[in-house]
């Protein structure tokens, strides 16, 4: 495996930067430029590149869709959130519409934010493409078809002319898909969700979203630590603060940055990537959580440092 690319990182619901928020950022950026010598294009670019990410960038607003570049021609994705629309457009732009491609898509679960992109996934409408959709839910196909039934959507599932097949992946078994060894783990979430551990060529990526960790049962904690063990990258649901996850949002099926750090430290993970951001959080709040999480890792570290990042739409992580 070579690279992980994020097309959608937001939890629950797509969001967008508002005009008012953008105006505020522009004002702050212009204010910060007062008195600077910005006559050349290079100076302007350097100034912009030096601004905080939460001012000059954005974590984005598409729901879950993560691509893993394995090194082979086949595409590998996790989840079909709204981020799969720009992914599909990029794939078609790269190959053209008449060059058949194969897409392997691993579904964490079938809640709306993780399936809503499929009706807008253009490669699925193109004859000759192969789409393999994997998951642990027995009703996976029914859920994806149902969202395209009238009156919810005007285009029927069977309008998609690619060769589409659904593949059930029972947990606890090692599966061989797209040159990877794939292991799944059932997670605590309404209706269940599944985490995926992908291994290939000495590299390991774990995709674990929509997963609540109570940490009250040692066996359950151990199973996640073993699942994460020595991973190069863990993409982790850090939607809430620990206080929220144990009080008003207990049993909502999501986890926190604090639990992510603890589990990944126990498992010897090299890189923890915070994911499935709260849709009510703005860029500054997500950036603050990232800074907090890095500090937590620093003050609780007992071995080698663990890299901490926060996923944003368009982010790439080399493996």
């Amino acid at each position, binding site marked *: 495996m070579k690279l992980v690319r994020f097309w959608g990182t937001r939890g629950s619901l797509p969001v967008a930067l508002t005009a008012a928020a953008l105006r505020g950022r522009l004002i702050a950026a212009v204010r910060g430029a007062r008195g600077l010598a910005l006559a050349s294009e290079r100076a302007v670019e350097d100034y912009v590149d030096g601004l905080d990410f939460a001012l000059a960038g954005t974590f984005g607003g598409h729901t879950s869709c993560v691509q893993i570049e394995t090194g082979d021609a086949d595409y590998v994705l996790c989840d079909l959130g709204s981020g799969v629309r720009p992914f599909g457009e990029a794939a078609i732009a790269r190959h053209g519409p008449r060059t058949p491609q194969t897409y392997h898509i691993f579904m964490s679960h079938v809640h709306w934010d993780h399936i809503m992109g499929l009706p807008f996934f253009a490669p699925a409408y193109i004859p000759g493409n192969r789409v393999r959709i994997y998951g642990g839910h027995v009703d996976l196909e029914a859920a994806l078809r149902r969202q395209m039934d009238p009156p919810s959507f005007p285009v029927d599932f069977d309008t998609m002319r690619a060769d589409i097949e659904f593949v059930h992946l029972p947990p606890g078994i090692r599966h061989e898909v797209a040159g990877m060894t794939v292991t799944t783990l059932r997670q605590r979430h309404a209706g269940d969700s599944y985490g995926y551990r992908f291994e290939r060529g000495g590299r390991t990526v774990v995709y674990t979203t929509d997963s609540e960790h109570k940490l009250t049962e040692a066996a359950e904690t151990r199973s996640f630590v073993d699942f994460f063990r020595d991973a190069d990258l863990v993409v982790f649901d850090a939607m809430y603060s*620990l206080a929220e996850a144990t*009080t008003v949002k207990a049993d909502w099926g999501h986890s926190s940055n604090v639990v992510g750090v603890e589990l990944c430290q126990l498992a010897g993970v090299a890189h923890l990537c915070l994911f499935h951001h709260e849709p009510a959080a703005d860029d500054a709040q997500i950036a603050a959580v990232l800074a907090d999480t890095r500090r937590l890792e620093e003050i609780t570290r007992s071995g080698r440092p663990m890299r901490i990042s926060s996923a944003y739409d368009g982010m790439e992580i080399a493996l």
Partner: protein
Amino acid sequence: MEVARRRFADVVVVAPVGRLDHGSADELERVLRPLVEPSGDAPAGLVLDFGRVDYVSSVGLRVLMIAAKEMRRRGARIAVVGLQPVVAEIFAISRFHSVLDVFDALPTALKAISAAAAAAYGSPAVSTST
């Protein structure tokens, strides 16, 4: 885990020592359970003195949250005092400082919870267990 316990009038002060994590959270929960549940001699307030706690994990924080829920359910108060710098940072990062009452020192917490306990503070206290 060593857990000292003192009583000042209608407030009990519980003082754990060391790391509050997977290995010790159950012990603290066992100590707190009879104090937080409704009973004839249940205290009106509970103060957790963290002056000698040098680390708290999510499991430890969860024990505090369960205790807080039980105390509030019966109209009683709970507070945490004496956070060491690292533990104070963990409280802030986990946002627990916004859902639990945190005070710098025990007298301040006692004064906020119970006038009787504040008055009793400084008098000889009874150590009921360690």
